[in-house]
């Protein structure tokens, strides 16, 4: 495949773009109204066209394994900062956090903080040492002083595990999003995302992936800034005036009253609105919050697709510069999200957002439509189309980075490093990388289609938990602890991964049919009395009461349909996936337990294992990771 002529590549890329576009007309109903769908496609086509052109240019530059995995180490700090932001800000950040803020106010904003703080760990202890001693993959760092074969196997397996969890969440989430936005069939949107991403990675390797991520991050930031200016300008860019209007909005007050239920009986409308800016509407169990925070803060530094980005820059100074830029962009984006979320709550309303998508993901797109002039206006639909296209580019860019990370573990670590023990020609290396890319890409599409309708939201948290419990302790201790050795790395990887996955399997994240049935039956039992009360109100003829009662009946109908659906879904089942009737472990995120135990496993494994090589190589590793001696040669090696 490495011998493909550039003309063949050009034809293939044009072909892929054409397939992607012809796939679009298979439509159902989405947030974009049918009259303006051509606008969405025009924006999609423009973005696909630009990225395909970039891939075509990049393909000419990808000749060696180093080009394919790390863009030859020739990315600048500023470029890499944007690419990291593009790699990291997934649809969950772009649409999900604005959605959480629009539905739950303060708690949604608090949730975004951990995603930025995570980069302090990356900056202080991971980025520069990894640049100084690393080459292409996470396992390269582990193999430096430890037994190369054993550590490559565990490092590659953990990379593939983390990337697959993340990838599945992205593919399923992306498919649902594209369907909700423009009404394309789920399967077709999964295949479109998969094929586009494969074209970028297969032909353009890390060069194209980097540029796709940069383009996406720039589009994302532009879209957010435009929306925030439109939301905020009417208030003269005053934060108190803007928030005062948000808390004074009846839609927001009604949402808070709905969330608090009985507890809100004696609150004035103003108090209800103000409550939206206070904690506790979403997070009820603080320990869950702390556990998730640990997984974020330590897991980001162990995410293979993020680590890989530091091998694309020439020096430790550039690695440092790229994290600084990434923190500026990512943090700035989350601050903008505050305005998007509250703006959507005020202008569109929490209930209207949840009606399109119960998770709140449509807050940003619907706000864009509103700000442009509403559902019937040209500008409103253009803005919705633009945000939808950015969301699509977001999914493709994140998926491309994940596939490249998993493929490099498969080709560079397992095939070249373990099976061939490094005896391969440069051509074979590139061919292995491309074959692995096709395998991972096909796997991503297959899993995406197979997992249709599954609740995959917790898979991202699980990816972070495994990265924090297995990858992070291993990388950190091999870099900084003299006594760390092969025994510790193998123990840490195995224990960290199994614990994180195992604890999630017995946690409240899984579906427990008995609990689902119990909750649904409770809803149905309460339906009768509530309905009777509402019908009595309608019969009374009082106009205000009638309007309210009709709303109540609508809500009751929806709740009853959902409850019946839930009962049908768990029919004949009594236990969860692993045969439990109720969760054994109370935390939704295992980090609080699995991260300390992951560290403990590395420490104990190292102390109980004799490894002369790890000890002999310590001074070399430590001198190099601190100073960057030979770093440029490692990159060219």
């Amino acid at each position, binding site marked *: 495949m490495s011998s493909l002529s550039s003309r063949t590549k050009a034809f293939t890329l044009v072909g892929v773009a054409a397939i992607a576009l012809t796939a679009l007309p298979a439509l159902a109903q989405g947030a974009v109204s049918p009259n303006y769908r051509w606008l969405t496609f025009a924006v999609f086509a423009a973005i696909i066209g630009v990225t395909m052109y970039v891939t075509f240019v990049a393909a000419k530059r990808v000749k060696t394994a180093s080009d394919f995995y790390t863009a030859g180490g020739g990315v600048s700090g500023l470029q890499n900062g944007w690419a990291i932001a593009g790699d990291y800000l997934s649809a969950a950040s772009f649409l999900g956090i604005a959605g959480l803020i629009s539905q739950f106010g303060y708690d949604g904003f608090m949730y975004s903080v951990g995603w930025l703080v995570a980069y302090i760990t990356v900056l202080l*202890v991971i980025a520069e040492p990894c640049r100084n001693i690393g080459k292409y993959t996470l396992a390269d760092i582990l193999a430096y002083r430890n037994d190369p074969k054993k550590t490559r196997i565990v490092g590659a397996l953990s990379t593939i595990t983390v990337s697959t969890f993340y990838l599945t969440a992205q593919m399923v989430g992306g498919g649902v999003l594209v369907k909700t936005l423009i009404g394309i069939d789920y399967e077709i949107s999964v295949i479109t995302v998969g094929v586009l991403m494969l074209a970028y990675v297969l032909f353009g390797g890390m060069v194209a992936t980097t540029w796709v991520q940069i383009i996406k991050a720039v589009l994302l930031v532009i879209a957010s800034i435009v929306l925030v200016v439109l939301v905020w300008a009417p208030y003269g860019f005053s934060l108190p005036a803007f928030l005062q209007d948000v808390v004074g909005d009846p839609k927001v007050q009604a949402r808070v009253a709905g969330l608090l239920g009985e507890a809100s009986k004696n609150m004035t409308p103003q108090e209800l609105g103000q409550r939206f800016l206070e904690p506790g509407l979403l997070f009820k169990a603080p320990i869950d919050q702390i556990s998730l925070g640990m997984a974020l803060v330590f897991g980001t530094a162990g995410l293979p697709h993020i680590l890989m980005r530091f091998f694309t820059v020439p020096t430790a100074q550039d690695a440092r510069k790229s994290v600084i830029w990434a923190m500026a962009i990512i943090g700035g984006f989350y601050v903008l999200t505050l305005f998007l979320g509250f703006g959507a709550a005020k202008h569109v309303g929490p209930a209207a957002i949840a009606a399109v998508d119960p998770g709140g993901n449509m807050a940003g797109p619907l706000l864009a439509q509103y700000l442009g002039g509403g559902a019937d206006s040209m500008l409103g639909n253009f803005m919705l189309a633009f945000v939808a296209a950015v969301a699509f580019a977001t999914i493709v860019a994140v998926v491309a980075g994940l596939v490249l990370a998993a493929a490099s573990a498969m080709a560079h670590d397992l095939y070249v490093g373990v099976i061939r023990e490094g005896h391969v020609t440069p051509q074979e290396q590139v061919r292995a990388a491309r074959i692995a890319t096709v395998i991972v890409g096909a796997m991503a599409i297959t899993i995406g289609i197979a997992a249709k309708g599954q609740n995959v939201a917790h898979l991202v948290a699980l990816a972070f938990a495994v990265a924090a419990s297995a990858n992070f302790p291993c990388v950190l201790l091999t870099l900084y602890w003299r006594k760390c050795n092969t025994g510790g790395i193998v123990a840490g990887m195995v224990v960290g991964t199994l614990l994180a996955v195992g604890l999630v399997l017995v946690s409240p994240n899984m579906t427990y049919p008995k609990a689902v049935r119990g909750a649904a039956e409770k809803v149905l039992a309460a339906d009768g009395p509530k309905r009777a009360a509402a019908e009595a109100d309608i019969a009374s003829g009082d106009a205000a009461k009638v309007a309210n009662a009709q709303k109540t009946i609508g809500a009751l109908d929806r709740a009853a349909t959902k409850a019946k659906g839930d009962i049908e879904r768990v029919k004949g089942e009594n236990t969860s996936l692993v045969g439990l009737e109720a969760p054994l472990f109370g935390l939704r995120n295992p980090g609080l337990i699995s991260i300390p135990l992951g560290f403990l496993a590395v420490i104990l494994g190292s102390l109980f294992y004799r490894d002369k090589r790890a000890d002999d190589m310590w001074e070399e590793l430590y001198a190099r990771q601190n100073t*960057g001696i030979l770093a440029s040669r490692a990159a060219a090696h």
Partner: protein
Amino acid sequence: MASTSIQWSEIVADPRFQALHRKKQSFLSGLMIFSVFFYFLLPIGAAYFPALYSIKVWGPINVGILFALSQFVVAWGIAFYYSKRANAEFDAMARELIVDFEKKVKV
């Protein structure tokens, strides 16, 4: 990696390397502990001191919102502070060691 001819233990024993190592280690671990501690104050405070977070400071803006915004400022501040110190001090110390090393090994 032609490391057999290179005396890594000499580099590690070099007083300049030892000085770099000590400075970096205490600086980095201090910053790391502070940033983790400061971050976890946010969810812990939200869970156990909601009344404190609700105190209004400026119009509808309350302590909780200011504290969450301060997390961004502190994160950026730490990044800025670290990069300033690393650019000015650690890089120069490492540079000396690299120059010496390259003289000896003749790369």
